[in-house]
């Protein structure tokens, strides 16, 4: 869709400046693009290549390796149901089946109104709280079918807007570069790289 906004360029440059080599900022900056548009667009990848000083092919080469990056629009809410071993043992597949019926789509697809995408995912580090799921990477634990229905209703009517931002937004608190950033790492690495 679009290049990064002026605001996101400022954030991106702040991240890049903290890295001993600019390319180390690539994954965090790709997340910024996904935060802006809900997915990573071709224009955004070209823009990121300019900001970091690499080719668009290098950007896509890295981005396409990682499952969280989407290259076309997905639902406003991505519901990721863990079906790995601890969750399978406690009914994850049955929960996924219920989710599919409730939303009328198969795992791996998006509702026609663009609200929901369902995926069955690998372990999300909540194994003692099985079956577990994430909505835009926010957790729900020991989820029953009734819990799932209530969750969908709440998401539809906006009751969870404060807790769960639209797909693409991960952390809403960012590390910022403070005045007392020592910068020894970047300077030392640049000196080595210059040799």
């Amino acid at each position, binding site marked *: 869709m679009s290049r990064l906004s002026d605001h996101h360029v400022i954030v991106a440059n702040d991240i890049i400046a903290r890295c001993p080599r600019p390319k180390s900022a690539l994954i965090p900056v*790709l997340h910024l693009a996904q935060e802006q548009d809900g997915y990573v667009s071709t224009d955004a990848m070209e823009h990121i290549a300019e900001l970091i000083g690499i080719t668009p092919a290098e950007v896509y080469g890295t981005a396409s390796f990682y499952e969280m990056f989407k290259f076309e629009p997905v639902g406003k809410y991505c519901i990721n149901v863990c079906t790995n071993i601890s969750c399978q043992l406690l009914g994850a597949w049955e929960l996924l089946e219920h989710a599919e019926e409730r939303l009328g789509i198969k795992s791996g697809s998006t509702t026609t109104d663009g609200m929901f995408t369902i995926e069955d995912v690998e372990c999300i580090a909540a194994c003692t709280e099985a079956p577990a799921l994430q909505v835009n990477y926010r957790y729900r634990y020991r989820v029953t079918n009734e819990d799932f229905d209530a969750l969908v209703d709440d998401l539809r009517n906006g009751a969870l807007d404060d807790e769960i931002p639209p797909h693409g937004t991960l*952390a809403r608190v960012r590390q910022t570069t403070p005045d007392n950033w020592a910068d020894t790492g970047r300077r030392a690495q640049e000196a080595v790289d210059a040799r």
Partner: protein
Amino acid sequence: MPADDPGAANGSDGGAVSGVPTGPKLITTRFDQADGYTYDGYVRSGGYEALRRALTAMTPDAVHDQVKTSEIQGRGGAGFPAGVKWGFLPDGVFPRYIVVNGDESEPGTYKDRMLMELDPHQLIEGVVLASYAVGAAQAFLYVRGEMALAQERIAQALNDAYANNLVGTNILGTDFSVDIHLSWGAGAYIVGEETALIESLEGERGMPRLKPPFFPAAKGLYLQPTIVNNVETLSNLPWIINHSGQDFYDLASPTSTGMRMFAVSGHVNAPGVFEVPNGTTTFRDLVEAPEYCGGVRNGRSVKAFIPGGASAIWFFPEHLDLPLDKATVDQAGSMLGSGAIVVMDDTTDMVAACWRVVRFFARESCGKCTPCREGTTWLERILKRMLDGNGRPEDLATLVDVCESISPGLAWPPKQTTICPLGPSAVSPIVSAVERFRHEFDHYVEHGRPIDGVERHAIHGTSGVAVHV
């Protein structure tokens, strides 16, 4: 359904009900403290005292010596002693880096996320202590991409720690300076492997590097000397410096020192994460003791359990009395790995359980080595075919044959034809399940369904390879 509120780990102190080994909590003390994750909450409960003491009264070598004396073993999976690993850094080569592995994604594992969400300052204090001990120019804290709350809590904690002069230039007025840069992933289990994590930190695909020559301590991030340590490992450093390496060593068994966090999931009455004496507590204690999991659900019995994450060889009821001791568990033919115990009761369909773990590795293979990329995919497809009722008489032999190509001899610890241990990890569940429950596989092939008395799952959805929606 409980909200997105990080659960609390249960400790083992406060009096044993059933005579299980006890010890103090070291790194889970703030899990019940409502503001334990904030700067004020951390400082109020003794936070950053270890750092103050180390920077003002100890040399870097003295800090390193305490860690050596503690004999703390890495909590990320391999169990290598941290103090020894730090000693592998070549003399006089700078800059060097500390990399924190917060990629927690081994199925069954849940403790690093808790430590990052509920006590981020403890981790940051540990990172600065480690950086001081080894003379690092910068540290990188790499958090798994899917952990939004952990990323928020760490970002806030870092901003506060900088504002209070605990990270950055001239920390606490001393001449020691180090930065911590928060980075994060985007969904790839393999990035937990330390050389793949380094590739990812360099902005590349997360594909492991060959060791040798790319041992991180020698040629790590930007090919400079680098120490990669797990979140739980580093979270223990403030306690070790506040007390002593010897105190840590004395807590539990001499071959697995200190306290350690274990996640126990699956068919138990009260699944949970527990910080328990390492090396002396047994698997049975965790599964059965009322202060831990309180037994198997519905009064049933254990059929098998995974002792150390999905990569581990499975254990059976006769292993329940083994202590959580690295040397003992290694000798018994498996590993404690990432402290993840998954309990399967006697209603478990072993073919389905085996398939699910194998599907994980097939999906997460980075694709760099042929035996892993092709082999894990074939293994998954054959198992799925059995589950779907289309198994063939030769399938079991084919499974074992493919396993042999990935890990010749099917020995433990595994031999590998691959760059990293992920490929051989896919062999573990098959070797375990086929050896013990061969009749369950045969039954699937003959009758197209599981043996009587096991629970069936509505398995459907996507197969081996990841979907990109």
